[in-house]
């Protein structure tokens, strides 16, 4: 990837997270990245394409970070499921946390016809599927049901934390997740 393209992508990502997607104009992005509109459109064709790329990159980074954490720190499938919320809490409470891309984008682009909304929904589904695969590995009978419960808990906690920093929502979500996982394991 060209250095300039990468610079535009990381600048846009930072601005979207801190100022919101709709309220960040292309002018602001090019000014902050030290480039021109023409260069931005050369690489991304439209603001919408830029948003889609930012979302894809962000989600890839998050999934890679989470998988690495889980694979390096746990070996048992059931342990992975338990540890999932520990790592998410670590991430959500870090000073750099600015929210979750697909959750923010979905709220800013509520129309189902919007490609940004569609990608956000797809990423939410992928995350649920990831939890589901961990639950299957851990031999949980209703793996999909548990994955849906945990993803609802997780997305709600992230949204609450996005609204009120330091809310502690993830701490309670973690406790609740443990109750749900224990319940699903014993059935």
């Amino acid at each position: 990837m060209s250095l300039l393209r990468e610079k535009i992508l990381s600048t846009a990502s930072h601005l979207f997270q801190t100022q919101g997607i709709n309220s960040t104009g292309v002018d602001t992005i090019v000014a902050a990245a030290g480039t021109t509109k023409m260069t931005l459109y050369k690489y991304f064709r439209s603001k919408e394409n830029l948003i889609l790329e930012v979302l894809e990159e962000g989600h890839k980074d998050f999934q890679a970070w989470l998988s690495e954490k889980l694979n390096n720190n746990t070996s048992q499938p059931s342990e992975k499921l338990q540890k999932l919320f520990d790592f998410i809490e670590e991430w959500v409470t870090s000073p750099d946390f600015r929210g979750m891309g697909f959750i923010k984008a979905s709220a800013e682009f509520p129309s189902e016809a919007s490609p940004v909304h569609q990608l956000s929904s797809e990423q939410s589904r992928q995350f649920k599927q990831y939890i589901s695969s961990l639950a299957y590995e851990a031999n949980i009978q209703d793996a999909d049901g548990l994955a849906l419960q945990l993803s609802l808990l997780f997305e709600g906690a992230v949204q609450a934390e996005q609204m009120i920093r330091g809310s502690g929502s993830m701490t309670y979500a973690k406790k609740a997740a443990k109750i749900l996982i224990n319940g699903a394991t014993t059935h």
Partner: protein
Amino acid sequence: MDILNSTWLIKMLSKANATPQGRMLSLFDILDDWLNAPQLNSAIAQQKLLSNNEGKPLLIAYLTEQAIACGAANPAILAEHLMLIARNAAQQSIQDPNCDSLAHGKKAAAALILAQTPTTWAPLSLLNKSLNYGIAASLIFFLGATILISQALIQNHRHQFNIAKTSHPQLAKPMTADYKPKTSLTADDAAAIYAKYEQMRNGTCQFPEALQIPDKDKAVYLDNVVGGKLPSDVGDLAIAKFYLEKVRCNYTPMLMAHSK
């Protein structure tokens, strides 16, 4: 109308259940009913759920009130989190009506309430006065009887305990001091026993005499069956469930019962 911020929803929640926990959880049932109402256009429903994305002050205020009433550690966050789970689950239900997202959301919400509150979901003070008098009478009677017929009582307890052992597999293990599994209740367990308390509260119930309960089970019986407190672990839950089965309740409305 923004359904999640409507006075209609608050009215429905207020009359849905007798306890704050129950009222918070009925949010999911009410939304499910609303989404399954005939001729509801899913696009309009989606729009209504997403409108005013900044906040739902009416619902948040109501849920915060309920969270305070049930002793939540952080009522404001619990209220916000429950609203978000309900909204996300409702949105998913519109996109995929077969995924049961509101039922799963309710389970997640029950676990979240459990994580934020002490394990007392139906305090003794909420039970009716006659039941309290009944408990007091049972205890006085039990103390007197213990002094007078202690030997006979021990025999009686042994007999009762043997019946319990044979009819309930979880109680078949010896009820010694070391039999105290400390596994926490699951959200399903809590919801099931809570539903039982709710059901009993709608009837006139006859509890077994405390006198007939083996000493080892007495604390659990009084706290978790008569007192309506949520058991603290699965061991107590098994004992509580056994004695809950022995409670006889009449659910005939008072007026009908008197007219016979």
